[in-house]
């Protein structure tokens, strides 16, 4: 069987894209390979590590477990859309100063988890932040500085 393709229209970081994709294409591969948005990472491909976290219609999701076709007509936010031109999002600034990014591989997903949390809950407690990033694994920091950074960003925004 020839791999069936589907035409989809997706708004990514405010930009509309219309693309033909294979039905089997994951949203993650669509972002990284078709749109060249490689800020979103793959760490496990099984929905366990959160490195591929993006925000889909306002909800934090693992892009590795979603077909690109499912995003047809929907809005996707990725790390590339966080900063407003030169101006960093408060989360990005807070991650930088708190030392919340070490190797930086989990960072794009962590930032999106932080954003999804703050969009819903602008002044979370330490425990709420820990819950908010529990689906994002980090092997470098031990999480303390990440939680601190999200709380700092909450104060600023």
């Amino acid at each position, binding site marked *: 069987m020839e791999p069936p393709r589907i035409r989809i229209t997706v708004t990514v970081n405010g930009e509309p894209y219309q693309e033909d994709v294979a039905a089997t294409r994951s949203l993650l591969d669509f972002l990284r390979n078709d749109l060249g948005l490689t*800020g979103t990472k793959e760490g496990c491909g099984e929905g366990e590590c959160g490195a591929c976290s993006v925000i889909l219609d306002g909800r934090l999701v693992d892009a590795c477990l979603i077909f690109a076709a499912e995003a047809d007509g929907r809005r996707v936010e990725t790390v*590339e859309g966080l900063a407003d031109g030169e101006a960093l999002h408060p989360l990005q600034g807070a991650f930088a100063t708190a030392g919340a990014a070490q190797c*930086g591989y989990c960072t794009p997903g962590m930032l999106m988890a932080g954003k999804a949390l703050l969009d819903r809950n602008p002044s979370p407690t330490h425990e709420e932040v820990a819950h908010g990033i529990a689906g994002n694994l980090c092997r470098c920091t031990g999480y303390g500085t990440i939680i601190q950074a999200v709380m700092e960003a909450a104060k600023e925004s």
Partner: protein
Amino acid sequence: MRVVGQELPRVEILEKVTGQSVFGADVLPGDRVLAGKMVLSPHPHARITAIRTERAERLPGVKAVVTAADLPDVRYGRFVRDEAYFATTKARYAGDRIAAVAAVDEETAEEAARLIEVDYEVLPSVTSGLEAMAPDAPLLHEDYADYWSQPDLDRRGNICGHKQIVRGDVARGFAEADRIFEHRFHVPMVHQTYIEPHTATARFDASGKATVWASTQAQFPLRAAIAQVLRMPMTKVRVIPTEIGGGFGGKLSPTVEPAAVALARKARLPVRIVMSRSEDFQTTNPRHPFHLRYKTGIKHDGTITAREIEVVLGTGFSAGSGVMISQGAAVRAPGPYRIPNLKIDSYCVYTNTSTCGAYRGPAGPQLAFASESQMDIIARELGIDPVEMRLRNAMVDGDETPAGAPLEDVHAKETLLKAAEAMNAVPKPPGENVGRGMAMAHWLVGGMASSAGVKLNEDGTVAILTGLVDLSGASTSLAQIAAEVLGVSLADVHVRTADTDFAPHSTLSAGSQALKSMGGAVLLAAREAKRQIQQVAADKLEADPGDLELDGNNVFVKGSPERSVTLREVGQMALEHERGPIVSTQSVSRLTPHPAMAAHAAEVEVDPETGHVRIHRYVAAQDVGTAVNPLSVRGQIEGGVMQGLGQALSEACTFTDGKMDNPNLLDYKIFSALDAPPVEVHLIQHPCASGPLGAKGVGEPPIIPPPAVMANAVFDAVGVRIHDLPITPEKIVKALKAKRPA
């Protein structure tokens, strides 16, 4: 100091928080990149009687298939030449490389991999080092005696290395002891579990040159390995290290890189191989599983008279770095204590698993778990405070390692007391099943050959050129060192990791020695650049070069700051000056090792019904010398503690019939933010004589004590002693049931 000692954000942080950093799988070497896929043995031990690739080669979209037949017949290994890149006649672990394919897309490559037919005759296998030592164990390398090896390895059957250290007379030491304790411990294999899996992208150009983009901690050794495996001169191999998504010692040895090059050469197109998480768990270089036996003689007052130690590490299907790690294990096995009589035997043994590697603090957590659990057992038996007993035996300046190397800048007692004081600052809450435990450990930080270049630009800014992969903030610390010497701010220093074609030789980023080695080279190069700057400025200022100081982007006469010239002017003047542009490249090697001490303490609460351990508090004191960047130092310590706690409580690679049971993040349990306790970090800062500007190595020590700390705290809480990591709820419940009267 102005810049060294400041908590400064990393120099590359903006790329990281905006998603612009280029990691291994983000590289685009051209419009078209083929997808590569490895074909791996499903059997832990099997004779290979045939490999048929025709069906895969005929599949539309397949551009190359490579097997051992496509590579020169090369056996490699630093200690024992026991490894071939592709298996030929025998597969020695479930994951051994058989072939690799490249195709137009991943689906096709996967299909092609499935179409490669291999005939196996399955053989009995062994994954435990202890069992592999038995005379009737399956032999992994029948021809081991014919392999080249470094001398004095004492190889026999599956034993590929045996190190014995004897100091004093253990028999006399045990005779002098009032009590003798003997315990056995087991530590399973654990995996680094960096979040970025191994990946390599290779391009082969018309001149026969291979360019390899890799997520590696060791670009120069990787170049050497590719050149060796493919029998190419080093000038024909260029390794470009990408940003690295975590390594922890798991990205030191070649994995998919030679295959990517061989495929790119055959396909005449760039090829990328990205390991799946499952492949990464099963075919990379995790921490060695250890079996340990500790026998300790002790006086009633807590003075240790003798220790006899036997450690067996399962190295996997090839010796790899296991020989070196087993030798290092012998040196560190007694712990940070002065013990007059020692007998240590450390065995490195082949097993049917992937080759274990140098996971952060190699051998450290295993040894400390055994040694520090036993210290706790002994202190309780003797009724001595565990801190007091450790203080009584702790090593001090002037003591020697078991191998006879003198130790300076030790600070063991101060570090231990700091951890104890910090824990005791808050009283233990009342209630049952709450307990506290502590442990102390050391790491020996060596130094490796490194070169660095420092130059002054015409606008007065400074550039540093090295080949050091920035694993944990090293670039920022290097920039801080140069900024300190040259009197500029961090913003005026550009630091760059160049690839193997352009960078001078660099140490690998491992063993807590990256900053010691490369920082040493940068310090020398910056000082030489400073001397050149003084020379050029001296002519202009009509002063003696030795009277000139550098600060605030200016060069001025000591005591007369109005007689000054800017660095920008010096940078421009140098171009017209007889000595020419200001640039210096300096090298270091064979640096004196220094000890780095860590003492940790924790308070836990154990649910005696479910066995669940909740960590209330965790204190980590560490002797770091000068903290060049305390933000990085604290970050390293917090992260190291968390990995150590994972190894203590939840992580283990387990095997059934030679195959890994849990090669995925669902069943290999690393800590999430909800499992992570807050970590209180206390830095002990005394400048170290053998580190650049006094800095000590930082990365390894924090991962070493946590398993012992947890074992001791759990015992204090509920009175059961777990000798086998990880300390799971299941083991605690089982031990509690066994203890309860029927």
